[in-house]
């Protein structure tokens, strides 16, 4: 096989892996939109906040230390202990559940029946508020997530495949972190599907997603379901935050990963969990192949805009996305 072809395959594999990382972010958007019709602008910031909380809890950092020190003239920063990863994850999930409850109790309960654009605006406010709280709570320095996730290319795969091409082919590079992310994404999607298909609350969630009024009429608590959905989105945000944070450290630019999820949603559809996965894979592969083949001819850095071009093309022919529900309104 020619070296060029093998490198093309390598780009394709890495595109798929990158797509999984995008899908992890997109999943949170889908969960909330499907259940409540809200496009949650704050999903990226939720990933940041969850990762900040996890890193802060693990390091034994005192939340709001800067504020406490400024008000009381103290000099406290750390509790002096380190929390094991698993316990820290559980505590962070707890924080995200409290956040979900607070969002429902103090924001969306007061906005029932409002236009979608109002709800969207509320999530913009929520995003900036949460970013500010995260800063105040945990500080703006970069935190390292010591979860023991593997990093770097798989030497075994490299060695096994190095002989496939000529001397200029060095074997396939596949990042171990991306492989872990893929496994995590598969488990996450399978769990979400199993939850929505086989549990009482999951079925209630689907009922609410199908028809709020009908769900209410059979005694399903909308309030509870929306807290549940925001909690699930918070959990998905934590997973995305861990995976992206492992690459770059946990820092405020994590909130911008939402920009990578938008074309995925446009392409896959806002209401489909499989759509978020397939959309992510298509975007990941598409942008990487374009950068590989056309990028060098036009100065590179094509990935950000090409992902949106891909999504736009799909929108033109299929406005609801590849897997989204077609909305037909009769007047």
């Amino acid at each position, binding site marked *: 096989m020619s070296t060029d072809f093998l*490198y093309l395959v*390598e*780009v394709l594999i*890495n595109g798929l892996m*990158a797509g999984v*990382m995008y899908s992890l972010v997109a999943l949170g958007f889908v969960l909330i939109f499907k259940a409540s019709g809200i496009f949650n602008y704050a999903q990226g910031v939720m990933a940041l906040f969850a990762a900040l909380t996890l890193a802060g809890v693990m390091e034994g950092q005192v939340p709001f*230390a*800067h504020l406490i*020190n400024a008000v009381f*003239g103290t000099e406290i*920063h750390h509790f002096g202990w380190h929390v094991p990863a698993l316990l820290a994850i559980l505590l962070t999930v707890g924080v995200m559940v409290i956040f979900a409850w607070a969002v429902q109790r103090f924001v969306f309960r007061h906005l029932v029946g409002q236009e979608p654009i109002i709800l969207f605006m509320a999530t913009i406010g929520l995003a900036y508020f949460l*970013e*500010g709280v995260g*800063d105040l709570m945990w*500080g*703006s*320095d*970069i935190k*390292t997530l010591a979860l023991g996730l593997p*990093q*770097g*290319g798989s030497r075994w795969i490299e060695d096994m495949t190095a002989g496939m091409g000529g001397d200029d082919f*060095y074997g396939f*590079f596949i*990042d171990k972190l991306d492989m872990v992310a893929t496994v995590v994404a598969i488990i996450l999607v399978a769990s979400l599907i199993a939850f929505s298909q086989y549990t009482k609350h999951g079925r209630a969630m689907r009922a609410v997603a199908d028809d709020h009024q009908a769900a209410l009429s059979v005694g399903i608590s909308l309030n509870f379901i929306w807290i549940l959905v925001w909690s699930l989105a918070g959990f998905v945000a934590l997973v995305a935050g861990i995976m*992206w944070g492992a*690459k*770059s*450290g946990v*820092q*405020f*630019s*994590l*909130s*911008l*990963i939402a920009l*990578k999820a938008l074309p995925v949603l446009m392409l896959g559809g806002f209401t489909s969990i499989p759509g978020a996965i397939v959309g992510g894979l298509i975007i990941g592969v598409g942008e*990487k192949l374009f*950068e*590989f083949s056309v*990028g*060098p001819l036009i*100065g*590179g*850095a094509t*990935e*950000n805009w090409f992902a949106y071009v891909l999504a736009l093309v799909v929108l033109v022919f299929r406005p609801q996305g590849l897997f989204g529900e077609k909305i037909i309104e009769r007047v």
Partner: protein
Amino acid sequence: MTMKKLAALAVTATIAAAPVMAELVIPDLSYRTGPYAAGGTPFSDGYQDYFNMLNARDGGIGGEMLRVLECETGYNTEKGVECYESTKGEGALVYQPLSTGITYQLIPKATADGIPLHTMGYGRTSAANGEVFNWVFNYPANYWDAASVMVNYLLAENGDSLEGKKIALVYHNSAYGKEPIRTLENLSAQHGFELTQLAVDHPGQEQKSQWLQIRRERPDYVLMWGWGVMNQVAVQEAANIGFPMENFIGNWWSGAEHDVTPAGAGANGYKSLNMNRIDANLPVFDDIKTHVHEAGNAAGDGTNVGKVLYTRGMYAAMLASEAIAKAQEIHGVADITPAMMRDGMEALELTAARMEELGMAGVGPEFSVSCQDHGGTGLGIVQQWDADAGQWNALTDYIAPDDAVTLPLVMEDSAAFAAENGIEAGCM
């Protein structure tokens, strides 16, 4: 209200306002929030702590107290301009925007308002030509100096020849990141190395394509012009593909502690330039701790003291303070105006003896500024990250850039700017 009461109020207000008017006002366009906060915070801490130390220890400069006006830009150009507009009326003496984007927007405004800009090692490189950019200073070094220093370092490492070598430039796809390209292209033609340019889009969280290309093409060296998350991801990706870290060199905005710590042991051996030497044992830090931190007036939480960007912020504040003192000396007044500040900056001369006297021996190179040269000497050191010790170690002394390459570029670019804007070059 009677006229007498009104007059009394006016007199009271004037008396109350008088001390404020007499202060030396230094705006600090900081960014402690947003994606670039990790870099903006330590710089701002160092910048403010030094001025606060001068107030507490020396009673300001020349008997005049300093007043720092902090304004949060979030590294956002529009907010940076808003900060400038909202603080310039306070009697601002000099602006240090810490952003190339904000600098480009402020150059015409500050020039029209007659307020000096100090863009230390960033901003518009050709502002080094003081005859065109009367109000802009970028000493002690600029981007083109950095590119040339990197190549001079590599020349020294390779027996004075880079013939046939492959060098890749990984750069932030912005005005900042594109700054060194022309210099490197000229140097590539001069020294016979092959230059590959790899752009990374903002913010730089995803760089897989660029590093797969590096893995395929196997350049001998990778140079980086990054900022923010781009740095951390690039260092991690380089470690992931097994690129030899000692052949990976970032510029001075890609060489702070937080740029390498997320990659852990993988970052060991990574190199970067620095325009100032770092030494946590500088006597000036003791003064800062005693007079500022222990007094509860620290700009941050005190954890950044001695780090790369804290030291650079403190160094920038020292350069501003020295220019203030020089302006006071030239004009014979303590309460200087922005125009006098400009004169002080243009007459600035920093010697080794003076830096030692200030408790920061060797923190920067010796240099002097003139009407023609607002850029300083352009010297830079190469430092290397020791992941085990968790510290940067200087590998070289100050390395000089190749002025024969950079100066013609400065003159050409500044002449084009002068022609575009109808500026007649000359000293003020």
